[in-house]
């Protein structure tokens, strides 16, 4: 049975069964504080929070709703209040003398609702004079809620499938993976007359490839673009049949899950004697992979984004481009997980400038971009679509509209799904949401190949 009446999203039955949730929440809080490093930021944040309200002006949700509960600082205070009351000496003393705040079931429900109204995009962090990372607080709050089973069902089901089921979040079995790879190879041959391969279980490859596994179902052109780039650059790469999913919803609700999923990625690289992790077009998969050194030590395999790889190869002259460029106007959406900290912002732009005639920026962009509205795993929660594309996605829709772009490039599986829904629900019918490699694929010169290989009507090009 789905329980949606109590929260905006479905949860499993057991989430509502516990009668002592406040006690279990505090027990989990104490244990997490003991073993993690969250004590340091919580302790400092409780002391210095200035309540200046600058974060409100940065938040796309607050810009839309104007509701107090959507102010990032207000949301963080929900958790900081619990920390201050139960885990600081001053708070405990104050409670004994003056009573005051007590954690209740109703308060936990407020937490469960509030922390899934935040996409943890961390835009507000840039505007906080005190450097408070509200995304970090959301991240921790969701883990605490998960330990009392308050997890959106969509996220839990995916992680269950990944860790205890078929082995990936889309439940794609290995034979289906092989069939899909073969189909994509045939498509590349038919459309582009190129013999690019999707190598499977090749030991000793430089790169082991981890796309968002949903790409195998939904983003054929992105994957074909990936394979085409590896083909023309002579890249040594493979897909591993024991783990071919870069998705890590642990990042969105539980460090316990995140640790297991990241270790599984590194384990597959070691099994295949690979040297590096090549992450497909996916923001959170890339950011999760950047945690490999955290969980797997300094000898962990290096992490490379497929966009970093492609740009490096393009610079080195190993990817030859046709004279024709993409004619239609193109804009680029920065996925928060790779752009907010400024780690990947320029490579995709350089590639787009090289292959598009009319590239325009969204304003603001790069580290100050607006979230697609489906970050923090909320894109997987179908039952909150009206929220995601309405109050949460409206700002993004306005940004896209202002560019007048035909192609909206979003190198992230989650962003792509969300942005397609944002466009559908906000009257942006002429915008086509694509991956970076989708466009790159259209203009790669495979060596004497006829440009008629491009699907008719899919991309206008000029000479």
């Amino acid at each position, binding site marked *: 049975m789905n329980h949606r009446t109590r929260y905006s999203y479905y949860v499993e039955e057991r989430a509502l069964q516990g009668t002592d949730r406040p006690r279990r929440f505090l027990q*989990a809080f104490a244990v997490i504080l003991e073993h993690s490093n969250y004590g340091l930021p919580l302790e400092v944040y409780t002391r210095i*929070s200035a309540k*200046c309200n*600058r974060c409100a002006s940065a938040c796309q949700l607050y810009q839309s709703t104007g509701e107090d509960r959507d102010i990032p600082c207000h949301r963080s205070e929900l958790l900081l209040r619990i920390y201050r009351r139960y885990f600081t000496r001053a708070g405990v003393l104050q409670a004994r003398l003056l009573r005051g705040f007590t954690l209740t079931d109703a308060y936990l429900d407020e937490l469960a609702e509030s922390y899934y109204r935040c996409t943890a995009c961390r835009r507000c962090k840039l505007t906080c*004079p005190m450097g408070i990372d509200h995304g*970090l607080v959301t991240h921790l709050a969701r883990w605490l809620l998960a330990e009392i089973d308050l997890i959106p069902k969509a996220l839990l089901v995916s992680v269950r499938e990944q*860790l205890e089921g078929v082995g990936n979040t889309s439940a794609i079995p290995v034979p289906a993976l092989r069939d899909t790879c073969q189909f994509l190879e045939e498509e590349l041959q038919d459309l582009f007359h190129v013999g690019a391969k999707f190598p499977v279980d090749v030991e000793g490859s430089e790169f082991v490839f981890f796309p968002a596994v949903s790409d195998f179902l939904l983003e054929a052109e992105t994957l074909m673009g990936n394979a085409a780039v590896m083909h023309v650059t002579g890249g040594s790469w493979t897909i591993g049949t024991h783990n071919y999913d870069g998705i890590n919803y642990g990042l969105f609700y539980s460090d316990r899950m995140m*640790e297991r999923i990241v270790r599984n990625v590194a384990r597959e690289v070691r099994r295949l004697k690979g040297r590096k992790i090549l992450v497909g077009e996916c923001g959170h998969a890339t950011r999760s992979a950047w945690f490999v050194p955290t969980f797997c*030590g300094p000898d962990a395999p290096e992490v490379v984004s497929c966009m970093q790889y492609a740009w490096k190869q393009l610079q080195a002259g190993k990817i030859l481009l046709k004279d024709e460029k993409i004619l239609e106007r193109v804009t680029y959406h920065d996925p928060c997980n790779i752009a907010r900290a400024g780690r990947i912002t320029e490579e995709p732009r350089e590639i787009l400038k090289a292959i598009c005639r009319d590239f325009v920026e969204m304003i603001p962009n790069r580290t100050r971009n607006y979230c697609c509205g489906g970050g923090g795993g909320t894109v997987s929660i179908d039952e909150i679509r009206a929220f995601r594309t309405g109050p949460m996605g409206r700002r993004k829709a306005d940004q896209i509209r202002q560019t007048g772009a035909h192609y909206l490039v979003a190198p992230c599986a989650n962003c792509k799904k969300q942005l397609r829904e944002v466009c559908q629900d906000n009257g942006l019918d002429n915008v086509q949401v694509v991956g970076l490699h989708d466009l790159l694929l259209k203009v790669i010169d495979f060596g004497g190949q006829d440009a008629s290989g491009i699907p008719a009507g899919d991309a206008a090009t000029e000479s």
Partner: protein
Amino acid sequence: MEHLVAWARGPAFIFSFTFMVLGLLRHLALTFWQFSRAWRKAGDKSLPLKKVALETLRWMFPVNCLREQALFSVTSILFHIAVLVVPVFLAGHIALWARGSGWSWPAVSNGVADVLTIVALFMALALVVQRLAAQATRALSRPQDYALPLIIALPFASGFLVMHPALNPFSFDAMFFLHIMSANLLMILIPTTKLVHAALFPDLQLVSEMGWHWPPDAGSKVGISLGKEGVRL
């Protein structure tokens, strides 16, 4: 009254000043201790120090920050400049330090100090008014958020009247006593309220960065402690 003034600038000042210094040192020491413990436990010890330093400097000299909430930002920046410069660089204060400890440093002219004092007073008032005027800040604010700018304004207002006896409708000693005691109160409040950011500010960006540097096995240990290790999801 003279006895009260002597007490305020004697034992009361020494207590408040010592309380402030030791209080801030305690905050710094605790933060440093917690930070080093977190760093030792972290699986990935590489910190983007250059980025953190740039971000810290960006907020120490927050010119870029005027893009958002310009009026509030200007108010806040002017307020901070005034409250930092006047107490430390007033010639009268430096003379007192020189007499007591032998240390002295360059002063701002009394004219500049006067202007900055008036700026501090108006900006303190403006901060409270702006806090009251916006729904979002009203929703966030605690009593200390309204009280602190006004408490900070007290030593400035009384100090201004001490410096300008012709404008002072009260007795000099009473105003002098109020000036010293409000400053003493402020020194008690600095380590016990959000004003502690005066000392912690240079560490804040680093602390947030460290928040993402986790122990490699924190998740597993939490699972074991909660009896969930091996339990199906």
